[in-house]
């Protein structure tokens, strides 16, 4: 393993930007956004430099580490604050800083009319720094710091326009639900320390063989909860839709490309835990499959373009989690889908932002229509992203999603068939709802308001979109050419070179997937292109649509199952505290006061009554002696 002293700059540059902009106050208003963008770009530069260095080394020498300082040194518990940049981290570093920088550039224009633009860029830089710490930390504890950091940045950015109570509530909801996941991560760290005595990735990987499967299963489940919280997976998925309250660049960066994929990173990073705990791994697959369908179904019913895309994100991350749950064969595909998704989903979100920019912040797709002519560049970039997410060859999604479907089928037995069918069905539904978004937004008739003047966005906005669109087109091909990414990541995962049983030939799977996608597109065309679309969502729809519009009852479920009983519990606890604990204390006090005021009657100041009491005492004494003697 190589050591380096430049890893820290990856994090330090954006962190310094955040600190400067937040502490500098109003006087950095004029140039703050430029500084933040420059720092993010320079962080990207450091990342590229590290990649070139890494490529120049042999496979064993590629991971780079840097020890920052002794962090915790208590008895047997020793944690160094250290950074680790290996083949997995570098993918994330480049994604985060690359997409991050593009979104910084986009935001310069997008947020130009917002008087709090400086604060926005400070938070963006803070997010970049925290996310980099998350992927660069060499122990679960360092990861945890970044994990909380991105949670904080996410909270701050969702609630960026916190003058609207609904947005403030949305940020709080995201924060609280993430807290549940964070509990899982902290429990996982505790389990790791309790059973293995270490929390560093290397240490846990080393100890995993000697640890009982029960402990590893527990740790795996806790890690899964953490991943579910951060990545909006079932059952902690409800916050992502509301998180769209944040500015669109935030949705693109945090809630599509990077932060929400942290769960995938966590599971992939903890591959040594999950490989040794089949039960936890199975749960990962199940969670992934459920979320995949869950997100897809929600996506079919959403009229809000950002929420439709958010549901799609949820679904796509479901794919990744599912792939990560398939074990060593799936990790690389999960990461590949993560990277390609980072490109096309960020691109589509920026496209949505561009549409909103031109449509006076209107988000309802039913008020769009026929925007293709007015926003050709946006249409083109969005369309390329659309083709990528559908998995149409040769766009990026085809390579990554197809591999996941294939791997799912190859999982073996009934499990393989079920997972394969779910992923195939998911692909069809994805095709349906994404086609719906395309049709409603860019084609058909105009449905917008009189005073809307749709126009193409300035170059600062479409340039990042264009770059991301190029990524959407080419990244899949580049990453899978000669199994580039698989081989790149290979040293990290304990890949047993067993000859896999192919349930279906790869070409058959691709054919099936494309057929399903075609069916999805066809249905969408029939439903939305052949007939006029109402500019107000129709109310006389099937009960399933209604349920899907309500995010499949997720909020109501949470409210009924967790919030209400929680409220009952807390009110009960308060009442118990009031009645039992305070009551006990008060009763003790009352007893003291009561006996005091009762006994005060004896203290009447008359010495004769005191003498009478002495006499009574003497009687009692003699009586006691009498009893003893008798």
């Amino acid at each position: 393993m190589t050591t380096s002293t430049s890893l820290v700059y990856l994090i330090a540059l954006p962190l310094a930007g955040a600190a400067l902009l937040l502490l500098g106050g109003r006087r950095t208003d004029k140039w703050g956004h430029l500084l933040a963008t420059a720092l993010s770009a320079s962080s990207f530069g450091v990342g590229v430099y590290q990649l070139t260095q890494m490529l120049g080394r042999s496979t064993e020498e590629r991971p780079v580490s840097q020890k920052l300082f002794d962090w915790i040194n208590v008895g047997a518990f020793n944690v160094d604050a250290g950074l680790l940049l290996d083949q997995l981290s570098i993918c994330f570093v480049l994604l985060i800083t690359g997409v991050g920088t593009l979104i910084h550039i986009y935001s310069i224009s997008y947020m130009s009319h917002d008087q709090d633009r400086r604060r926005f860029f400070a938070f963006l830089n803070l997010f970049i720094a925290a996310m980099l710490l998350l992927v660069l930390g060499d122990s679960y504890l360092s990861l945890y710091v970044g994990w909380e950091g991105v949670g904080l940045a996410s909270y701050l950015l969702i609630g960026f326009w916190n003058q609207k109570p609904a947005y403030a509530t949305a940020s709080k909801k995201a924060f609280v639900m993430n807290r549940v996941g964070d509990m899982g991560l902290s429990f996982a760290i505790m389990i790791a320390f309790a059973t293995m005595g270490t929390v560093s990735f290397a240490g846990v990987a080393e100890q995993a063989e000697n640890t009982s499967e029960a402990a590893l299963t527990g740790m795996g489940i806790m890690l899964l909860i953490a991943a579910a919280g951060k990545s909006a997976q079932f059952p902690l998925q409800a916050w992502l839709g509301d998180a769209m309250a944040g500015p669109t660049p935030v949705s693109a960066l945090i809630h599509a490309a990077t932060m929400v994929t942290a769960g995938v990173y966590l599971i992939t990073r903890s591959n040594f835990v999950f490989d040794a705990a089949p039960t936890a791994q199975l749960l990962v697959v199940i969670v992934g499959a459920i979320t995949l369908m869950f997100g897809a179904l929600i996506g079919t019913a959403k009229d809000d373009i950002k929420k439709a895309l958010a549901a799609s994100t949820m679904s796509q991350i479901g794919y990744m989690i599912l792939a990560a749950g398939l074990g060593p064969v799936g990790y690389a595909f999960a990461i590949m889908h993560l990277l390609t998704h980072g490109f096309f989903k960020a691109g589509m979100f920026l496209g949505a932002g561009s549409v909103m920019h031109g449509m006076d912040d209107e988000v309802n797709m039913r008020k769009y229509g026929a925007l293709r002519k007015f926003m050709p560049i946006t249409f083109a970039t969005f369309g390329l992203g659309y083709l990528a997410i559908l998995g149409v060859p040769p766009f990026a999604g085809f390579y990554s999603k197809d591999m996941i479907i294939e791997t799912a089928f190859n999982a073996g037995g009934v499990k393989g068939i079920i997972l394969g069918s779910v992923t195939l069905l998911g692909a069809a539904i994805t095709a349906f709802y994404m086609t719906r978004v395309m049709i409603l937004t860019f084609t058909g008739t105009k449905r917008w308001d009189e005073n809307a003047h749709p126009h193409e966005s300035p170059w600062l906005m479409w340039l990042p979109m264009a770059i991301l669109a190029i990524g959407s087109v080419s990244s899949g091909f580049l990453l899978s050419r000669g199994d580039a990414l698989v081989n790149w990541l290979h040293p990290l995962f304990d890949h047993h070179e067993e000859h896999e049983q192919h349930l279906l030939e790869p070409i058959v799977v691709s054919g099936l997937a494309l057929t399903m996608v075609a069916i999805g597109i066809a249905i969408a065309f029939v439903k939305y292109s052949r007939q006029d679309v109402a500019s107000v969502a129709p109310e006389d729809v099937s009960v399933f649509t209604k349920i899907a519009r309500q995010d499949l009852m997720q909020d109501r479920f949470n409210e009924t199952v967790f919030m209400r009983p929680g409220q009952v519990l807390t009110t009960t606890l308060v009442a118990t505290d009031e009645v039992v604990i305070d009551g006990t204390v008060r009763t003790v006090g009352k007893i003291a006061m009561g006996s005091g005021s009762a006994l005060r009657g004896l203290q009447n100041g008359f010495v004769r009554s005191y003498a009478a009491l002495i006499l009574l005492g003497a009687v009692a004494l003699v009586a006691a002696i009498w009893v003893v003697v008798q």
Partner: protein
Amino acid sequence: MDASNYLYISALLFTIGAVGVVVRRNAIVVFMCIELMLNAANLSFVTFSRINGDLNGQVMAFFTMVVAACEVVVGLAIIVTIYRSRRSASVDDASLLKR
């Protein structure tokens, strides 16, 4: 003649003295009742001395008398002081401890 008869007398006198302390209000009478109780105790000492056949009991009674004399001196001085300040020898009038 059974010497324990003196003990019965002693017990009776002690009890009467105790009642007197509680019942009477004149400080001097209360004081005399206390003296009566001390004397009753002395009688017991003397009687036990006789029953046991040694003089320790009588020495005890002697000490009791000395202590009683001291007590009388101080106690009567207190009564005089109280009387001088509030023109009353009733123990009920000196009840300032009540409040």
